[in-house]
């Protein structure tokens, strides 16, 4: 396969940045998208150019490090698939692809397709945890968790923190990411004591970091590689409303 790639190149955060065109030749349909970029990069390095910088690590869709826009769609055209698991057989010979980094003020570009997602870590640090210091835990089976709740928690906890939700959102909102953690911890009995404070602290931090707000458009859920749904956002909204209305402990 031969492809034309229009790739965003930007040397560092302060650089202007521009789209640069590359031809990718001899691409096998069995390659992953990142393996295709590896081939392009080998050529660039040998030519004395700098390789296209992109974040990646596990290449099996779980670490959440990779991700960029392919023709305006976060992680490309396949549903529930990160770019490392996206294979070239989903493209056609001669395709023209525009590759851009996630765009959000809270995710400044570091270089080329790499953005700084440390804002996500700060949202977690603000309350995305259960305070259970090492050693203080009770016997595990003292806490019974209905299977249904454990399953809901797991559905939300599957979030890999890749940032596609922010990238796809017309408002660059981090609601889906934040909500996924609020749901994961909020449906478990262990998460109840801090439930009220958690949602407030996380949303306030999210706002403070410059993410946009949610307008219920649903692009986030549509591109989420782990298929986390809009219902998590409704859950967050509910918890936040209750935390404003109700007083007392975290049981909302």
């Amino acid at each position, binding site marked *: 396969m031969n492809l034309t790639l229009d790739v965003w190149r930007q040397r560092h955060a302060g650089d202007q940045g521009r789209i640069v065109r590359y031809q990718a030749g001899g691409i096998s349909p069995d390659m992953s998208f990142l393996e295709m970029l590896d081939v392009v990069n*080998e050529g660039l390095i040998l030519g004395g150019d700098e390789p296209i910088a992109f974040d990646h690590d596990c290449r099996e869709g779980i670490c959440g490090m990779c991700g960029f826009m392919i023709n305006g769609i976060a992680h490309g055209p396949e549903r529930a698939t990160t770019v490392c698991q996206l294979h070239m057989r989903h493209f056609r010979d001669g395709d023209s692809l525009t590759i851009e980094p996630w765009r959000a003020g809270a995710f400044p570009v570091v*270089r080329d397709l790499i953005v700084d997602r440390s804002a996500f870590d700060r949202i977690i640090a603000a309350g995305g945890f259960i305070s259970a210091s090492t050693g203080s835990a009770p016997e595990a089976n003292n806490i019974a968790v209905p299977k249904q709740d454990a399953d809901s928690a797991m559905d939300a906890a599957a979030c890999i923190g890749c940032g596609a939700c922010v990238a796809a959102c017309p408002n660059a909102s981090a609601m889906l990411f934040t909500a996924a953690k609020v749901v994961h911890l909020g449906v478990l009995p262990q998460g109840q004591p801090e439930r009220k404070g958690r949602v407030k602290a996380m949303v306030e931090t999210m706002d403070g970091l410059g993410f946009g707000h949610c307008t219920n458009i649903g692009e986030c859920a549509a591109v989420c590689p782990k298929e986390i749904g809009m219902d998590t956002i409704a859950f967050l909204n509910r918890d936040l409303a209750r935390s404003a209305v109700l007083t007392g402990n975290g049981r909302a």
Partner: protein
Amino acid sequence: MSTLLETKTGSDLDGKTPTGPIEERWDRHRFELKLVNPANRRRYRVIMVGSGLAGASAAASLGELGYHVDCFCYQDSPRRAHSIAAQGGINAAKNYRNDGDSIYRLFYDTVKGGDFRAREANVYRLAQISVEIIDQCVAQGVPFAREYGGLLDTRSFGGAQVSRTFYARGQTGQQLLLGAYQAMERQIGLGTVAMYPRHEMLELIVADGRARGIVTRDMVTGEIEAHMGDAVVLATGGYGNVFYLSTNAKGCNTTAIWRAHRKGAFFANPCFTQIHPTCIPVTGDHQSKLTLMSESLRNDGRVWVPKKMGDSRPPEQIPEAERDYFLERKYPSFGNLVPRDVASRAAKEACDQGRGVGPGGRGVYLDFAEAIARLGAGAIKERYGNLFDMYERITAENPYEAPMRIYPAVHYTMGGLWVDYDLMSTVPGLFVTGEANFSDHGANRLGASALMQGLADGYFILPYTLADYLAQVGPQPTDGNLAGVTEAMAEVGARVERLLAIDGDRTADSFHRELGQIMWDHCGMARNEAGLRKALDRIPELRDEFWRNLKVSGTNEELNPALEKAGRVADFLELAELTCIDALHRGESSGGHFREESQTPEGEARRDDEHFSYVAGWEFTGVLSEPVLHKEPLAFEYVHPSQRSYK
């Protein structure tokens, strides 16, 4: 390191394992360890390299205790560490199933599974702590699988005859890591832990014979920085990427432990590498990594190849009578659930006989047809749905209809930096945890034990043993004016300069691929003296070429993936040689290390306890000089060494 004829041997190593009844050793030892006064803890600074299960759990726990921790990782966030990719589960001797499990049984299975090359006391402690790990993780909100009554579900895994594996769908590693990560983020919010993402450790700082800090490169700006502390912990994972193709993340590397090795930390059993039997086969030269399919698939899938050599019919056209279910045939009592090393070797053997399937004949079938007929496609989807989806995404084949094709791939390294019972290396003040150390798995790791070890080290061992060390040395000045700091920084700077200055015409990746091929061919699933010697000839040549003909574009003062990669490959090129030396010297077959010269008449691995019942700790003496072997003799007081049999 020239081709080895005879191993230079130094003094024996002392693991400092406590004595007495094995059940009481850890308790008694904990009492003997010194404590740090709570009010004094904030005066200590701990350097934590790596943020996976072992690193994040330790950073969080030490932060909770009141120490100051500086934690480093090369990824953009600590949540990316490769522990996240572990699928299957985590073992714990809870005996919730009433199926006869106990701490002693987990201990026994792990020592036996490790083919009698692990320290008994360490393994017993691991089995004891396994119980607390589950409690801790549940309290953090790890969404383990539950039964309808709300209690924790467990499954049998990796050939264990008891159901002691706790799991969170096929994403157990992810959930455990997020638990540890969240605990650490809590400490970051509270100011006890400072996180340095996109920082790669490139050198260890040793001053007055103690590990006192590290030199890092800021991967965004290229700045070379020294970070000082009272102790250094390496939790940087394994070195499986020395084979180029492995199930490890692309960024996994040996640099941290290799640099520490060069500064005096002995490297133990580097040849003990685990080849995992159920991975998706290689499709072509472009392949950048291999994807593991959880071992749990072997609970319901049946492994087979055609009986006939070169049978190219599609699988559904091969009648039952012409299929060879070779694991069931060779190991009737364990069948498809034999340990990883045994299953991998059997697959290789079938492919070597020309009976492999798929492109290049490097694959065997893992067939779910019988399980689907017995349990229904729904039940199989419930159990393995995400794995089947992943398989289909990568191969474009539907495993509900056609059998999967699998082939072994490098997955885990049991070897690592040598540590004593307190997890301290041969450099005082340098602790090594998780996969980066060699300690608990002997020559072969059992399924669902890596997560257990990483978290045991981080949550429940290091906080005690590190305190003991800190209490003994007292708080140290951390002003960076120590002897050794400037030199270490200068060394790092010079090395980076050197990599950039070569300006040859091969990329680091091409050297890495070639190195990986040498290792896979000669130091892979089966090893022999001739092959290892060939590898030991080729590796120094390749290393020479690397330093003459490497091409790195760009500069140091920017984010430069080509430069990062080159530095890692340079270290792999040194480690590879040590791995082959270790494999050559260990003339027995044990666990993941199969020496063709040491097998039974039926072709099974033959261990040689008379000559090799020891941990091989290698001392670095220079790139061009032979390493010195220090043995730590292994004594088995509780589990009597026997030849493993899964027949």
